[in-house]
């Protein structure tokens, strides 16, 4: 008996454990949600409420639409259709205690932006507020006293506040893009706002301008121009001041400003071989950065200015390398594909966007600088080239031939929300995104 018991003990234990297992599982009640149903935060942006003075719908309505379009541009929000709002901007509540939260929840908005406008003689006082309609919380409130013509600036500022609330970053609302646009056979540099509006021609070379690059204070643009019948480097201030930077024999091209300095790297070939040099803002050579026979081109700086990525064909095919300025060590970054070019270092420093040719088409990828893993961002949509990062690193602008001629598009840093940015006739290419802080 005793013996049997001793033998049985482990069996009992085993059986008991076996028996309880399913019952135990049943106790642990949980539900897994593995992918958000909605990929954007639903937000309502009703027309602004006129508070004092004579209403100008250019402000109460058009500015509200502008605000909606700005925050929509980030790819983070889905602006709910205004026709569904249970709200009258003449009478509806726009401050915390007056807000009819259930009405906003009824249209499935999770955030609400309200505006109130006091119309003065020449100026307006604009009160903008952000609410969480689900938790019924007031999140941000700002008041802007501006000239009527400057309402747009206030709208941008507040859009920055809204994005900052989510991401801790003020976004790209005060940034611009430079790009090449071709019309009448000439390629000139144009400038537009972050959202592709307010397009202006910047250069009048009457020949061919290429490779625009913003200085880190966003006041100068360096570029290559053939106006003297040779690819020379110029820099031009937004106020119109223009300087010849480098017009040495051979090519003078692909400028890239060092972050925070009035100096830039560029490819020059006066020695008979293409090498990347470091130049001052007045065009003096500080030093030679690469020294390997073959093509060395398209520099891009890490945000701390300590490293420079560039394209070299030293291994046979064009591939992307990183040079450590201090140690002078050069390390190859891309190993897949036979044609990897146009690197662009992200503003946070963690990624290198580049274009890669595969099966006869260019596509945009990014390389995680730390892990060296690459990720494809565009596919099956023509040729996609010249990636450039938005100042907050959340978006990439690029050129694409997906709709025929080359045009400028924008997408999130993860390749989602790809859309056309610039809608002017002609052919556009080589976008370059400024850093922030314009005007």
């Amino acid at each position, binding site marked *: *008996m*005793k013996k*049997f*018991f*001793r033998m*049985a*003990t*482990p*069996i*009992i*234990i085993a*059986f*008991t*454990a076996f*028996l*309880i*297992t*399913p*019952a*135990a*599982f*049943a*106790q*642990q*009640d*949980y*539900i*897994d*949600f*593995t*992918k*958000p*149903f*909605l*990929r*954007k*935060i*639903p937000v309502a942006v009703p027309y602004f409420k006129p508070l004092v003075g004579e209403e100008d719908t250019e402000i109460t309505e058009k500015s509200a639409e502008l605000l909606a379009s700005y925050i929509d541009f980030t*790819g*983070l*929000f889905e602006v709910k259709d205004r026709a569904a709002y249970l709200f009258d901007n003449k009478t509806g509540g726009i401050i915390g205690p007056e807000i009819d939260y259930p009405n906003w*929840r009824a249209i499935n908005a*999770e955030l609400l932006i309200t505006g109130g406008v006091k119309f003065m003689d020449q100026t307006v006082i604009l009160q903008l507020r952000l609410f*969480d309609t*689900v*938790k019924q919380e007031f999140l941000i409130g700002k008041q802007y006293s501006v000239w009527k013509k400057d309402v747009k600036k206030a709208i941008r500022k507040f859009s920055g506040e809204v994005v900052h609330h*989510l*991401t801790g970053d003020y976004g790209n609302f005060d940034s611009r893009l430079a790009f090449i646009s071709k019309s009448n056979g000439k390629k000139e540099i144009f400038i537009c706002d972050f959202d592709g509006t307010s397009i202006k021609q910047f250069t009048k070379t009457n020949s061919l301008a290429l490779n625009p690059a913003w200085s880190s204070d966003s006041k100068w643009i360096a570029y290559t121009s053939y106006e003297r019948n040779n690819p020379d480097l110029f820099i031009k201030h937004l106020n119109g001041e223009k300087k010849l930077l480098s017009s040495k024999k051979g090519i003078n091209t692909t400028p890239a400003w060092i972050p925070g300095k009035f100096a830039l790297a560029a490819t020059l070939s006066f020695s008979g071989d293409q090498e990347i040099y470091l130049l001052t803002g007045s065009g003096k050579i500080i030093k030679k950065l690469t020294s390997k026979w073959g093509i060395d081109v398209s520099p891009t700086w890490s945000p701390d200015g300590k490293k420079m990525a560039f394209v070299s064909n030293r291994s046979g095919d064009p591939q992307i390398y990183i040079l450590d300025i201090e140690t002078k060590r050069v390390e190859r970054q891309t190993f897949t594909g036979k044609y990897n070019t146009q690197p662009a270092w992200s503003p946070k420093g963690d990624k290198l966007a580049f274009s890669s040719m595969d099966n006869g088409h260019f596509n945009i990828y990014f390389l995680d600088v730390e892990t060296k893993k690459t*990720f494809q961002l565009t596919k099956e949509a023509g040729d996609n080239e010249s990636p450039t990062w938005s100042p907050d690193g*959340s978006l990439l602008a690029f050129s694409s031939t997906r709709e025929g001629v080359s045009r400028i598009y924008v997408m*999130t*840093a*993860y390749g*989602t929300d790809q859309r056309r940015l610039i809608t002017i006739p002609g052919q556009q290419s080589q976008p370059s995104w400024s850093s922030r802080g314009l005007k």
Partner: protein
Amino acid sequence: MQTRAYILDEPETAPLTTLIFFGVSIILHALLFGIIAYGPKIISSNKSYSSRPKSINVKLVSLPGNARKATRPARTKTRTKKTPPVKKKKPDLVLNKKTVKEKKVSLNPVKKTKIKKKSSKKHETYSTTSVVRKAVKDIERKTKSDRAKPVTDAIEELKRKMAESNPINDIQTTVDEQEAGGGGGGEVLLEALAMYQAEIYVQMRKNWAYPASLSKGRDIQVVVTIKILPTGKIADHWFVKRSGEKNLDSSAVNVVLKSDPLPPLPRSYKKPFYLLQLRFSQEGLR
């Protein structure tokens, strides 16, 4: 493990041994009957009654909906997560010869009610007689849940079929079928809860808005427990685990608030409230 068991046996008393022997005997008998009664069902390949060892949660994640792909990885997750608690259980049983109820404690440390049980059980269950009695009870309970399984599996099967034919299926219909078919009483509870979870999953999922880019490419998860009253009202919610990304945490709370009130709890659920964990995870983008 075994060494300890031997030591416990050393002060041998005849009645005790006999009792334990009977205990073993009962367990083995129950097992045998269980196999005889339900074995055929397990063996039978009849679709609606095939019994695979699945838990409620696993079924849940295989729910229809346009995220059928998305739910698949979750299934594996659920399984792996469940295993560790079970391992912890075994030592408890051996050392103290404690009974089944104690399992609940470590399985679900989150749930306050169950933690209470732990302290009281220690005293109650010290005598070996009650050990045996409880073991028997457990077998009974186990057999019940065994019987329940084919039913739940059948429901699961139905659901899957419906999902295949129509991705936006009507969960309510399935519930009705289940209620009609299930014999009533306690054994229906598990299925009722499973169906309830399935229903609220669909309702809650629609309310989850989160832009993936906010996770900055990381794998993050937030876990919220909700307390559901019989009426379906969500009386309370709290974070079990925050993700470290405030927007994801906030989106989870929004789901809870937007989904309140939920449908009433199943009538077979007799407790004053039902605690349910909601786990929201955003996988790294690539």
